[in-house]
């Protein structure tokens, strides 16, 4: 899928999507269909299926794809798609494409998305809106888990691209007669970001494996992966912006699109501190295996 997205213009898709609505309504859906996205079912119980979904999301994140691919994959069981929302603040990216979708909250309760209450577009979230929902009913946790995992992979993809751009920029940009890559202050920042992303990659791989083998029991691992994703995003984007200097602060630069792309994913349904509290709550209740099991109240 990476190469299909690259052939289709990569980050040009998101830049074009702002003024050309058909990029999101026609072009990208057709492209994803051709790439076989519709055949992936992350709920099949086969680890290869959820891994394929994860890789697709990573590739989409890498170009800041202006399309709710995470929701489309996480909705493989329902008719159209499924989106994870904060029930009190159901701000959703691409909500205009979600009529007929379902929304879940972080406990698995479900409702139908029947439209967007208002368009809430900003520079950081040019395709956002507030989902209009109906009544909520109880549901299962697994769509929440699948959604969260895939979202981590999408953000991972964006961060990897941001780091790749920074590496390239450090090699190309010359100041004081040397490429930036010759300065240790730059090398260290790149190394730190690289370590951060390497760690995140292992953690999100572990989250996929955990879901494949433990299903609903993988909540703690997956929320922990989200914590790691949020922290890595902060650190890596800080480095990427710093290395780019003023050019990364411009709206034309790919970095700006990549760094704004994950804003809603990083805030909804919970941001850093909310997700940390959620992880603590989950460890308390279900314990936490990780490398060395930590017993929680639920496992005594």
């Amino acid at each position, binding site marked *: 899928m990476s190469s299909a997205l690259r052939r289709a213009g990569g980050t040009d898709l998101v830049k074009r999507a702002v003024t050309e609505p058909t990029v999101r309504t026609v072009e990208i859906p057709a492209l994803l269909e051709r790439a076989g996205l519709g055949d992936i079912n992350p709920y099949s119980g086969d680890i290869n299926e959820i891994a394929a979904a994860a890789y697709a999301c990573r590739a989409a994140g890498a170009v800041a794809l202006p399309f709710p691919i995470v929701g489309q994959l996480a909705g493989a069981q329902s008719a159209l798609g499924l989106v994870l929302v904060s029930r009190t*603040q159901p701000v959703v990216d691409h909500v205009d494409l979600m009529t007929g979708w379902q929304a879940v909250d972080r406990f698995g309760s479900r409702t139908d998305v029947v439209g967007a209450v208002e368009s809430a577009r900003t520079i950081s979230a040019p395709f956002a809106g507030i989902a209009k929902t109906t009544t909520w009913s109880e549901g299962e946790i697994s769509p929440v888990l699948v959604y969260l995992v895939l979202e981590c992979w999408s953000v991972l993809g964006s961060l990897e691209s941001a780091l790749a751009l920074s590496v390239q920029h450090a090699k190309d940009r010359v100041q004081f007669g040397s490429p930036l890559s010759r300065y240790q202050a730059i090398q260290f920042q790149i190394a730190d970001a690289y370590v951060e992303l390497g760690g995140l990659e292992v953690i999100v791989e572990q989250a996929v494996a955990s879901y494949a083998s433990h299903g609903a029991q993988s909540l703690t691992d997956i929320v922990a992966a989200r914590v790691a994703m949020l922290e890595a995003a902060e650190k890596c984007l800080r480095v990427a912006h*710093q290395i780019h200097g003023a050019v990364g*602060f411009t709206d034309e630069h790919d970095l700006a699109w990549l760094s704004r792309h994950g804003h809603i994913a990083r805030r909804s349904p919970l941001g850093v501190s909310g997700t*940390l509290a959620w992880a603590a709550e989950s460890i308390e209740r279900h314990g936490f295996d990780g490398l060395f099991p930590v017993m929680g109240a639920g496992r005594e």
Partner: protein
Amino acid sequence: MSETGWRHANDLLDDLFPLRESAAATALRGEFRAWLKANLTGRFTPLIGRGGAWDEENFSLNVEWERHLAAEGWACITWPKEFGGRSAGAAELFAYRDEYFRAGAPERVNFLAEDLVGPTLMKHGTPEQIDRFLPPMQRAEEMWCQGYSEPDAGSDLANIRTRARLQGDTWVIDGQKTWTSLAARSDWCFALVRTEQGSARRAGLSYLLIPMDQPGIEVRPIRQMTGSAEFAEVFFDGAVTSAENVVGAVGEGWSVAMATLGFERDWFMSRYFRFARDLAVTVDYVRNTLGDPRAFEERIVRSFTELAAFRAIGLQTLAAHEAGESTSPLTSLTKLFGSSWHRDLGELSFSVLGAAGAQTHDQNTVEHALQRTFLYSRAEPIFAGTNEIQRNIIARRMLELPSSTAGSRS
């Protein structure tokens, strides 16, 4: 946004670290507070809590406000009386800025004139230049921009290629500047250009004052990731300025430019007041809007503590400056500390917003202000000398190293 929110963090700082203010400063504080209360109302109300280069919607009103300040004697207060100022000292300046930001008064768009090129002219300008340029600067009638950076001269400022040659009594300028804040709004540009053919690095540069409204200049605004187009590319193609518009000696522009940069880093101290307001807005949001503020307690306390340190460093810098002592590398320290602090605050603002942060495009909401703080804080460790360049300067001093980056913004 509640005004009380803005006052909150400042009041707390005052309680903890009482200012031992001079009588003159206290008097000025009281007088200015009353003036702001009476004047920052009516048609100027839309500016409260806003203003500055990003606020494109209110730009003309902002200029009007600054003209009003000037007309009433509340602009350029550190300038000598003969140039329309009050000859205010460091303590008075501190009190003045403190009151200004507490009142929610708008960020200034004329600061490049008031704080950078104005003081530079007082130090290096000819009497004719001073007579010609200072009065309209003081009255906010002519706006200024700073033409230093070029595509290949960012941190490495001495790599400037834009060149000017003297033809009769006119400088003819060719080349390109970039990231020029407010270029599209400015009447004049103070620019560092190469005036000696074949010269390199710091030698052979001159500091020119160039009128912006002429056929030889093309300004192409660049949109920032914050959404506004504050800065621009500026192309010079046979642009002209008269021979006498060179500040300092021809070929000696580097030292004049460094004087301006020194003023710029001093100006950076004024960010403290803006920063205090940004923190207060964040604290206010956490207290009033979030169900459970405890989640952010630790980060807020850290932010607050460091802000107090920033204030202390800033006061020390101002005092040193006033006593005529060298403020290097203190200004580098201030810049590094302050911009890093603001970047952390930006990330905190991003965190406290939660899902709501993405949902507003109404520029008058707290959510919008917090989002702006976050996006803008990305630029703080970059402009006016990056964090890495400041670290180089500090390290060089501490470790007694020879200059490794001769010609940087130091």
